[in-house]
């Protein structure tokens, strides 16, 4: 198995290199949306730009690709999947030169203002925020914050200043404010050196300090932030939310904290990759893992992934055995319940199920996101496990059961000593399959603000703009985890290999 994993690892590496290879390019330098005719434009899901370009794509004849995070947008342009990305100049000002992207046009007509969002009707918090913003605007503190994070004056968007992370301010006695952010939008909010930082983070931190709150950060996909706010999972949404009429119907905005234009970013043909393969790998390792101790994020995510997978596997197995027992029970009502259970859980996409559990069923509970994830994955995998167990048990010839009962064994003894040991042989291979599926399936827990292996790599990608390397790192980690897990199951369930 080790040998196979080496080979497959190599295949993944080669594939990713092929993807990152440059395609033949034409001369492409759009100055407005009109120039995009026949091209593909990448936008961030749920963003203002997305809503804006949807009014023009048919008229101007370009197609729109929607991505879940800014790094995905950059990666799409860098790899040629999309020809340009449209985003706010605030975000674009921090594009890493090593990505080989450049800003080709500033769309002055797409001028927007942004602010924080709070749940509709939470006027108390809204007023506190508004008066704080008025105060820092008057005192010049807001301008100072911007000057430190964003250097727009020169028009040189590449040279953004990164200051040291703001110290974590805490008022140990204050009420907890949960701040939701997308976590991948420098310079507004980003994870640097395992610290949440950025100008919006600084603003809310200063606000908390000023008004005597404690701050707790949670990270969601951008398009999930408004729902999280609506369902009460977070108190403040901080992700440079552009103020629009459509959004105002769902949430309440503070007064604007800043403004932005939109820009178009395309691939920079001048930036040739002169570095050799090994040099660029070395550089990638350095920026993705070593610099600012980013490997800690991978390690932390690994731990979360392991905990969620292991717990869901254990509970899923126990629950699955119970459902299997009911399914094979003589009582019709038990059979019917088990069938219904399997029918519902097997046919619900796990992502939808996870979101329903988190945002609807446990919306108002104090259960931690990790507990909700464990519960959702346990329930989901138990439906599959129960069928795996059932087919395994049914694969044992009925004569074996009769022989057991024939010499006077009880039902339980027959099951324990005769049926189970034989069923396990056909269960284990499929069971391993299901556990690996479960392991990889946990990659979606990022949707409910858990930083697992995949989300960890996303955060690194957004902080470093390394498109592929963190993904390859976690692929290797998943490989290793899956290998350990399948080996462990073999060792645990097939104690002595015979025949």
């Amino acid at each position: 198995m080790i040998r196979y994993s080496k080979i497959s690892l190599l295949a993944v590496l080669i594939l990713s290199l092929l993807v990152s290879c440059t395609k033949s390019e034409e001369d492409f330098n759009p100055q407005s949306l009109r120039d995009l005719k026949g091209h593909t434009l990448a936008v961030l899901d749920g963003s203002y730009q997305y809503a804006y370009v949807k009014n023009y794509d048919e008229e101007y004849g370009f197609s729109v690709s929607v991505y879940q995070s800014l790094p995905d947008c950059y990666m799409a342009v860098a790899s040629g999947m999309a020809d340009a990305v449209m985003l706010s100049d605030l975000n674009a000002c921090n594009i890493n030169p090593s990505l080989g992207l450049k800003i080709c046009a500033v769309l002055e007509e797409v001028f927007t203002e942004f602010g924080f969002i709070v749940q509709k009707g939470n006027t108390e918090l809204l007023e506190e925020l508004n008066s704080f913003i008025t105060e820092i605007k008057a005192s010049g503190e807001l301008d100072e914050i911007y000057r430190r994070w964003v250097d727009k004056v020169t028009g040189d968007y590449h040279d953004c200043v990164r200051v040291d992370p703001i110290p974590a301010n805490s008022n140990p006695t204050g009420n907890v404010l949960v701040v939701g952010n997308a976590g991948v939008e420098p310079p507004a909010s980003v994870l640097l050196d395992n610290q949440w930082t950025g100008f919006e983070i600084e603003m809310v931190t200063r606000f908390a300090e000023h008004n005597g709150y404690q701050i707790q950060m949670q990270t969601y996909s951008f398009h999930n932030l408004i729902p999280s706010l609506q369902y009460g999972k977070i108190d403040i949404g901080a992700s440079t939310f552009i103020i629009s009429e459509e959004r105002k119907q769902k949430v309440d905005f503070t007064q604007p904290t800043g403004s932005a234009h939109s820009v178009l970013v395309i691939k920079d043909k001048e930036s040739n990759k002169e570095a050799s393969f090994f040099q660029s790998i070395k550089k990638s390792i350095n920026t993705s893992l070593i610099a600012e101790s980013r490997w800690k994020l991978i390690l932390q995510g690994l731990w979360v992934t392991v905990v969620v997978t292991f717990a869901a596997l254990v509970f899923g197995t126990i629950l699955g055995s119970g459902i299997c027992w009911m399914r094979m029970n003589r009582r019709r009502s038990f059979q019917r319940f088990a069938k219904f259970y399997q029918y519902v859980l097997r046919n619900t996409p796990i992502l939808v199920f996870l979101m329903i559990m988190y945002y609807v069923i446990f919306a108002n509970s104090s259960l931690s996101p990790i507990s909700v994830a464990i519960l959702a994955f346990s329930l989901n995998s138990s439906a599959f496990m129960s069928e795996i167990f059932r087919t395994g048990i049914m694969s044992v010839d009925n004569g074996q059961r009769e022989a057991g009962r024939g010499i006077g064994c009880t039902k339980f003894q027959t099951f324990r000593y005769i049926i189970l040991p034989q069923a396990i042989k056909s269960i284990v291979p499929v069971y391993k399959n299901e556990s690996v599926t479960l392991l990889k399936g946990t990659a979606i827990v990022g949707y409910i603000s858990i930083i697992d292996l995949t989300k960890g790599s996303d955060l690194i990608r957004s902080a470093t703009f390394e498109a592929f390397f963190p993904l390859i790192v976690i692929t290797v980690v998943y490989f290793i985890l899956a290998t350990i897990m399948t080996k462990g199951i073999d060792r645990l369930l097939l104690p002595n290999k015979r025949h």
Partner: protein
Amino acid sequence: MIEITNLSKTYYNNGQPLEVLKGIDCTINKGEIVSIIGPSGTGKSTFLRCINRLDEPTGGQIIFDGENILDPKVDINRVRRKMGIVFQSFNLFEHFTILENVTFGPIKVLGMKKAEAEERAMELLRTVGMAEKANVYPSSLSGGQKQRVAIARCLSMEPKCILFDEPTSALDPTMVGEVLSVIRQLASMGMTMLIVTHEMKFAHDVSTRILFMYGGGIYEDGTPQQIFEHPQKPETIAFIQRIRTLHYDLNTTNSDLYAINTDIDKFCLKYGVERQKFTLQLIFEELMFNILKDYRPISVDISFSELDYSLSMKVLVKGATSSVLNDADELSLSIIKGKSKEVKETVTDEGLLIEIK
């Protein structure tokens, strides 16, 4: 030892009741060796499996050792320890070695010490001649060897009686002997046994009593001499003499002679009398399409007895009241008479019966 009263079993297939056992009464005494014989599908195996409740009877009572084992309060597992069963398909525990197969029951069910159980198991394996295979797995054994181990496994529980459910039916003919001789050995030791079998010679030689089952009940019950040498009832006679029959109803004069000839071909091939197939086909054709061509309906039975290898044909001409052979075409009649031993004609209530041997 076993007293069975009015035992019945009905299966329900999509709500359609199918009565397999129709109120069986029977007493088996200690030390008896009872063989249960009869045609397929007459409930022999079901009867046997109902006795230790592997199949749940739907009515009646079974007294075993003075206790009604159909009482729901009875611990059937305790009963089964005293009443072993040997299956047609052996059902050895595939994940255990031969030795473990034989020690499993004593250790887990009877609570015996491992060393003691192994010692006794080896002794039993020696009895059935399987001691040298003690540490191999069942998958490497032949059918006959598996069945001998299954008998040893059954004996390991020290049962008071053993039920054999067609113990040799899944075996190659070459392996039947080794299993039967083990059962013979048990018989000589005085074990009470009920054996469902198709081995007539074995049943004749080893049994103290034969039950002939037919149509879900015990049709005839007696000593091997009574049943095999002087059977009383017609179905028993047909079974014992192993008479096979091919039946036809000819209702019009347009019957497909070629199809019937093909059937006669198959029938003769099946019972190894191919040399006589042309004779049969010739007689059939002359009779049906010459002599009796104006008579319909006719029902025909072609019978073959496996015991004395004799073929016979019974023709019932429905509605005919007088002899037809006397007015028959001379040539056809002489062909039929020349090809057969005996031609007999009788007038019955239903019509004219012609018997040709």
